[in-house]
């Protein structure tokens, strides 16, 4: 009986684990089934590198959106990562305890706020600011990057802060005892030691940025042309799905699933390389 229970429990856990991950197979299967016929019809090369998206006229090229996704994510990374690491250093090292006790839950709260709220806030404040001070329609790569940078900040800050705080005390004490200043200690001892945690935070943040949909729909402008500057409106892979899914049918709908496939493949490639990097770090 006990033996039986023992076997049974392992089997159940295994079955639960297996069904959890079979979802990944299911997702892959269904999105590919729905999207591949269109890619086959249009031709993979023409679909990915085509410059014109006009489903009404049967033109399905998503290259402008690939450029859009890459540029907006890059912008968010450039703006968000240094600021995020800066804030995590502040929280872990410089901030007085009372400040930390206020800011930590605040940052946590911000991580949970719906992305639509960020997007709407961006539409009300960031977009007009860009239009008035920098020109263009305001809806732009820059606006999207700013909003995404703000959205990924809580993730980057809290994970980096945790990995900085998790360092053994003697790292810092040892360095300070050698006569280093606080900043020298942070730069030459603590940041390198916490590198793997910070890298993980950055990867997670970038993942969130590239996958975000609703917030950027509101601030990117979603035009399907290739942008000439950061002040031009642009459409990403995610917003292409988000904005058109409501009305799409037939080949148009298939094309959106095909967009999903491209997004899916890009994300999986990122995942694999991220897992590879972190694994190598551990070893």
């Amino acid at each position, binding site marked *: 009986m006990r033996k039986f229970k023992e076997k049974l429990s392992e089997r159940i856990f295994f079955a639960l684990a297996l069904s959890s991950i079979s979802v990944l197979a299911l997702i892959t299967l269904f999105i590919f089934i729905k999207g591949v016929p269109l890619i086959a019809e249009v031709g993979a090369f023409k679909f990915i590198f085509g410059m*014109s*998206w*006009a*489903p*009404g*006229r049967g033109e399905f090229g998503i290259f*402008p959106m690939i450029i859009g996704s890459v540029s907006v994510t890059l912008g968010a990374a450039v703006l968000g990562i240094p600021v995020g690491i800066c804030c995590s250093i502040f929280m872990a090292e410089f901030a007085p305890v009372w400040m930390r006790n206020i800011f930590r839950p605040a940052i946590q709260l911000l991580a949970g706020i719906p992305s639509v709220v960020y997007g709407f806030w961006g*539409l009300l404040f960031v*977009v*007009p600011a860009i*239009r008035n001070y920098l020109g263009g*329609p*305001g*809806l732009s790569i820059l606006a999207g990057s700013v909003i995404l940078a703000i959205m990924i900040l809580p993730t980057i800050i809290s994970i980096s802060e945790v990995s900085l705080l998790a360092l053994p005390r003697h790292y810092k004490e040892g360095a300070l005892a050698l006569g280093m200043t606080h900043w020298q200690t942070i730069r030459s001892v603590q940041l390198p030691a916490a590198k793997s945690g910070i890298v993980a935070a950055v990867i997670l943040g970038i993942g969130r940025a590239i996958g975000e949909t609703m917030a950027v*729909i*509101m601030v990117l*402008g*979603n*035009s*399907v*042309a290739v942008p000439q500057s950061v002040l031009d*409106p642009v*459409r990403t892979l995610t917003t292409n799905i*988000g*904005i*058109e899914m*409501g*009305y*799409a*049918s*037939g080949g*148009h709908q298939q094309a959106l699933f095909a967009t999903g496939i491209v997004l899916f493949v890009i994300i999986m490639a990122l995942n694999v390389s991220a897992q590879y990097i972190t694994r190598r770090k551990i070893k």
Partner: protein
Amino acid sequence: MKVKFPKRAAFVMLSAVIPAFMSSCGGKTGISVVVAGSTSVQPYVEMLAEEYELLCPGIVVDIQGGGSSAGVTAVESRTADVGMSSRELNEKERELWSTVIAKDGLALIAHPDNPVDNLAIGQIRDIYSGKITNWRELNGADAKIHIISREEGSGTRSAFEDMVMAGEPVTPKAIVQNSNGAVRLLVSNDPNAVGFISLGLIGNQAGLKPVKALKLDGVSPTRENVINGGYSLYRPFLLVAESEPEGAAKLFVDFILSEEGQRLLVEEGLVSVREGTGE
């Protein structure tokens, strides 16, 4: 300013008509009507369903979005009793039963500070196809036009393309938004923007900045001008069904086409089918 129908009076009126309607509820209970389709029509039908369920507590109306095409598909596969469409039916779909429940004017809008207030239909086409890029060419300020369009597949966009673009593609540089409200919000903030939205939404509302509705060939986009045929930018809101509806579905469609149902639609800024369009 829209004149709000006094709420209390509405209740008095409703309680007066309830007995009349109760009889037309057919004494049915626990029956649901499934409606699916255009998200442009959806909010209006939802509002009508709310009122209808007050009148006929036994009948439940389930409304889902999905878009005009999805609505037609749902009706053909009988997953929905009634479909909603915000565009004319195409050749193939004509075999279905359909009825127009209201008309929705489209208005070109710009920022109130923009000196331009009249456009010819050809000028609109040139703007949206990317031939005219500066307000100066339209006797406006020397500034780039920020073109705002709707997403591919939306009923508003296809109605706009049918009526204005004459086969020319909308420039890919156009900014795309996926709702009337977002277009309105952007135009109200940007002196150089131009967009098109449902006529019912150009009015002022608490918390929203005003926009200016542009004249089309000298005709103001007003309900009156749609009714008398002077303003030609409008599209029908349709209900479709596999065959002529029966039972609860028919009762609901009848309610929408009734005087009360049409009055509610007019209150929301649509043009009633009873008011005609001068055709």
